[in-house]
């Protein structure tokens, strides 16, 4: 009996020891628990729901009816979808390089001028569009683009350029939207680049200059490669943001004229909340998710090459 008692006590103390260790092991999970729960509930579960809904006929109010892949076959016939696919691509392809280059140029320029009241003012001014809401920005831009006496057109008149039909010409409306997006986002990316530029040790560039390298070569062969991680971040964020552009287009053009500025995200919204055809909306949404994932995976492979510590 004594032996078993001792055995039992040993077992118990092992358990207690194990529990303590478990709790010790569990602590990290307690730390990441709350956030994980939120992210899982509000991001992961919706994805599964979205996939489920894409196989149903659902109008938000009645119960969803299973209809197989009929939504996906409707996609093929949907001309608006095709237009939105094309426009979303074009939009992203236009915005990302533009804002990357523009922000890089501005960042280099401001850094090269050194700290001064002017540079601080410019930095501040460029960031103001970033902190405002896109809805507000869209409402004001519509007025500025449409009004005869608006400051924008006055400037054009001075330069003797005929005022283009900003929002009415289907061949340029997408560019106008891209322009406003670049206007809004560049400040943010410029700050990113400035931080990146500040991290480059001065002796690298000094040494190159001493060796007789011209300014452009210094920039191209030394600065630019060292900025690669920043650039990857700028491009990635830029892509993600532009794929999700909604407020701007919804407020400014509603996808028009015709379908010339219709994007995937707008098409999803119209189907889900205007036409009350939620099942189909989720089908389109899944396509968008597919593209976003591809973009993310591509970015990750670039980053891996850089051996950055980000992940």
């Amino acid at each position, binding site marked *: 009996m004594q032996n078993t008692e001792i055995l039992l006590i040993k077992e118990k103390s092992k358990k207690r020891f194990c529990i303590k260790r478990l709790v010790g092991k569990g602590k990290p999970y307690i730390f990441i628990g709350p956030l994980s729960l939120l*992210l899982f509930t509000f991001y992961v579960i919706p994805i599964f*729901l979205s996939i489920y809904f894409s196989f149903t006929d659902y109008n938000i109010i009645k119960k969803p009816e299973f209809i197989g892949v009929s939504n996906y076959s409707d996609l093929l016939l949907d001309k608006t979808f095709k237009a939105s696919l094309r426009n979303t691509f074009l939009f992203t392809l236009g915005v990302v390089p533009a804002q990357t280059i523009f922000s890089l140029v501005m960042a280099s320029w401001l850094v090269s001028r050194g700290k001064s009241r002017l540079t601080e003012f410019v930095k501040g001014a460029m960031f103001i569009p970033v902190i405002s809401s896109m809805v507000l920005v869209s409402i004001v831009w519509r007025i500025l683009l449409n009004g005869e006496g608006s400051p924008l057109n006055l400037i054009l008149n001075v330069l003797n350029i005929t005022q283009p039909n900003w929002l009415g010409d289907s061949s340029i409306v997408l560019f106008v939207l891209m322009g406003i997006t670049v206007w809004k986002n560049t400040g943010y990316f410029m*700050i*990113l680049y*400035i931080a990146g530029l500040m991290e480059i040790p001065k002796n690298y560039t000094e040494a190159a200059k001493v060796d007789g390298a011209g300014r452009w070569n210094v920039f191209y062969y030394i600065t630019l490669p060292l900025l690669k*991680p920043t650039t990857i971040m700028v491009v990635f964020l830029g892509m993600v943001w532009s794929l999700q552009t909604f407020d701007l287009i919804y407020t400014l053009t509603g996808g028009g004229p015709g379908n010339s500025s219709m994007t995937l995200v707008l098409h999803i919204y119209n189907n889900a909340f205007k036409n009350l055809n939620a099942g189909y909306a989720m089908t389109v949404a899944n396509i968008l*998710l597919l593209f976003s994932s591809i973009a993310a995976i591509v970015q990750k492979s670039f980053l891996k090459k850089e051996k950055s510590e980000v992940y």
Partner: protein
Amino acid sequence: MKKQLGRLVLILIASFMIIPFLYMFMTSLRVTYTAYNFKFVLDDLTLKNYREIFYNTSFIIYFLNSLFISLSGVLLTVVFSSMAGYAFAKLEFRGREKIFFFMLMTLIIPSQVTLLPLYVIMRHLGWLNTYMALILPLPTAVGVFIMRQSILKVPRDLMDAARIDGCSEFRIFMEVVLPLIKPAIIALSIFTFIGAWNEFLWPLIATTSNSMRTLTVGMASMNAQYSVNYGLVMAGATMTFLPSFIFYILLQKQFEEGVALSGLKG
């Protein structure tokens, strides 16, 4: 000469950035039933629109709602993200890299994909048209990313010393780590606040009653009537813009630090 030209161009660019906001502000000081009122004269300026906004009780409700939601969102995000960031940065556990990766992956999910399912989930939980629905989805993976980045920089020795002293993990977190990452916390708070403040689509569909509406939604609605005093609309827009603007002016440095933190490698 070149320097002068450079200066001019810079000033032009900066002005171009802020023209829409100037228009917004100028129009808010006029009573005008046409939006296309670009007069530069200053003789018809009035504070009438602002007065009407403040007496219009709905605006105050919207403002308080946005304020409450944004501040709560900040609290929620900072607390949860810093905890998680601490674990990812300093604690060893199974699946650490994998889980972090998945968290970051949630960033690529366009909100329109999650919008409708989120709506359905909230309806199921009975949380539609409540603060819960507006606050809880606010934290994103950006928070944990920034927190992890800055906690990585906290020297190990400080924490080990505390551990030897017998401090529990949680106390180490609260009393050693947190004070050291203040700039990151401030930056995260600012970004979260502004993001929450400017949210439009989700509050639009998640709220059905006037008492729950946020400022962005309320303001957009003022613009959509058949005939309207645009000065009033712009005044509302200015009021919506003001908190973010003030935040920015006061904390410009922290802003820039925050942006930098989110972009730099380790």
